[in-house]
């Protein structure tokens, strides 16, 4: 798929995110918007998935380790055809399969229930081990937040993936630099990210997480790298695409009011 088309889809995904979070009255727009381009690239170009058969053998699988970016995942799944786009406004509502954080037992297309930080990457390591045992051609992708890297369990998982040389595993770090309490470097410095993964035996790629050519190239290079897992450290902007949300930690976990939602949608070329 052309990068121009991906940009267009990503813009729709961003509109969906704002609509979802606005209707829910709560949720996490900042980290969903920063991850929107990366997840769009996964679901609309990179990954071999079939919305008509979500459990198809040999498919690629994605684990959203930063589960709070659920609005972005749901938007991608809906736009890809896993469920009707109209369902997106049920996010966080009683009885909805669109839980505040993803639940694999409720929503087909969600490969692992996540939300508690640090756990998704561990599950992804287990999936990659299973894939190797079964000679399954499917690749395993997982996305982590940069603040999430403060969880010790991430490094247990990183050590295991390096130890088992899981070249069917590709982790993506959504490096937007911000977390709930502020800048990573003020809360708990996570830098240097790439070097940390490298010493655990990972192939490290550093890209602009909003540049589709770089994103697709990185996925390609990850596939070609044998004998070690790959991590793509993607530089991103928290709240990307909505001027007043960009680079503002205050929009980590807050829904816009009607006026703000309307402005956000106007900036994204849509309507509430």
């Amino acid at each position, binding site marked *: 798929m052309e990068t121009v088309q991906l940009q267009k889809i990503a813009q729709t995904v961003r509109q969906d995110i704002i609509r979802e979070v606005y209707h829910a009255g709560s949720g996490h727009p900042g980290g969903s918007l920063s991850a929107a381009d990366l997840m769009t690239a996964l679901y609309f170009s990179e990954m071999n998935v079939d919305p008509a058969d979500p459990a198809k053998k040999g498919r690629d699988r994605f684990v959203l380790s930063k589960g709070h970016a659920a609005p972005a995942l749901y938007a991608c799944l809906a736009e890809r055809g896993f469920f009707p786009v109209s369902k997106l406004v049920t996010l966080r509502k009683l009885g909805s399969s669109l839980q505040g954080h993803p*639940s*694999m037992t409720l929503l087909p297309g969600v490969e*692992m*229930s996540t939300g508690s930080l640090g*756990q998704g990457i*561990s599950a992804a390591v287990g999936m990659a081990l*299973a894939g190797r045992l079964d000679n399954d051609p499917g690749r395993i992708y997982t996305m982590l937040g940069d603040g999430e890297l403060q969880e010790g*369990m991430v490094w247990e998982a990183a050590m295991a993936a390096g130890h088992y040389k899981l070249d069917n595993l590709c982790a993506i770090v959504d490096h937007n630099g911000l977390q709930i309490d502020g800048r990573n470097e003020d809360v708990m410095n996570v830098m240097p990210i790439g070097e940390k993964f490298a010493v655990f035996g990972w192939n490290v790629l550093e890209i602009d997480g909003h540049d589709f050519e770089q994103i697709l190239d990185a996925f390609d290079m990850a596939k070609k790298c044998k004998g070690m897992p790959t991590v793509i450290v993607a530089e991103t902007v928290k709240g990307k695409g909505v001027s007043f949300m960009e680079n503002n930690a205050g929009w980590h976990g807050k829904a816009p009011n009607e006026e703000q939602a309307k402005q956000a949608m106007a900036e994204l070329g849509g309507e509430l």
Partner: protein
Amino acid sequence: MAEKIATRASYGKALVELGAENPDIVVLDADLSGSTQTKKFADVYPDRFFNAGIAEANMMGMAAGLAVSGKTVFASSFAMFASGRAYEIIRNSIGYPQANVKICASHAGVTVGEDGASHQCIEDLSLMRGIPGMVVLNPADDVSARALIKAAAAYKGPVYVRLGRAAVPVVYEEGTAFEIGKAKRVKEGKDACIIATGIMLDKAMQAADILAAEGIEVRIVDMHTIKPLDKEEVLAAAKECGCIVTAEEHSVIGGLGSAVAEAVCGEAPCKVKMIGVQDVFGQSGKPDELLKLYGMTAEDIAEAVRSMKCK
């Protein structure tokens, strides 16, 4: 004198048999494969064994990932680290998605002995019982351990199996059948009922002998499944025996005693005395010395029955 076998050894044996029966069985350990006995499986099926290193949290996460990929996963460590260190991963990555993981935790309770309080897990039943949908098993001997581990493998969903370090007497005849959630009435009696779990079943049977000599005929129930609890059997004990003594090698807070009390209080209230660790940490010592110190001997159980004066 009955033969003595540790339930962790039963686990190692059962795993090897299961490995031959089911190619989808995968085993994980956290650098304790010799102690938990998963090494027996690793030696025969090295391709299906993964050492997570000393990283129990990640081991449980990997177990979840393997399980959602179609594997039947056994994950082992000491009870303290399996249920304690990795609790929240078990809760969110295994319990919540109903992943098909069997957490087989050895070295539970005070009979770990000399290693002391840091390694004597007396809270695991309580922790695991609180997770929605988690099946919690605590076999008493070699025969029941092997049977229940096979039942756990056949069951689809998360299961916690509590195993011990010390060799304990074989109570059951080889080949005795066990069903998850169905308690075993080991001895009939109507003067009182001792509901025991795990290695305390043997102590309960000794207590019954002591009491029989005094003319007190107790019923003994082996509650090998802590959850789902065999409520019918518990209520029958309450109604037919009038009082219950529970015996567990676990804290009296949140384990078998609590489960039994919860079951009777609404429908058939009766006196319940709980033999177990009374809200203290353990310490180093020989298993039998510790059981004596914490009031968990056959004589302690017998005395609890006498003191209730149910008759």
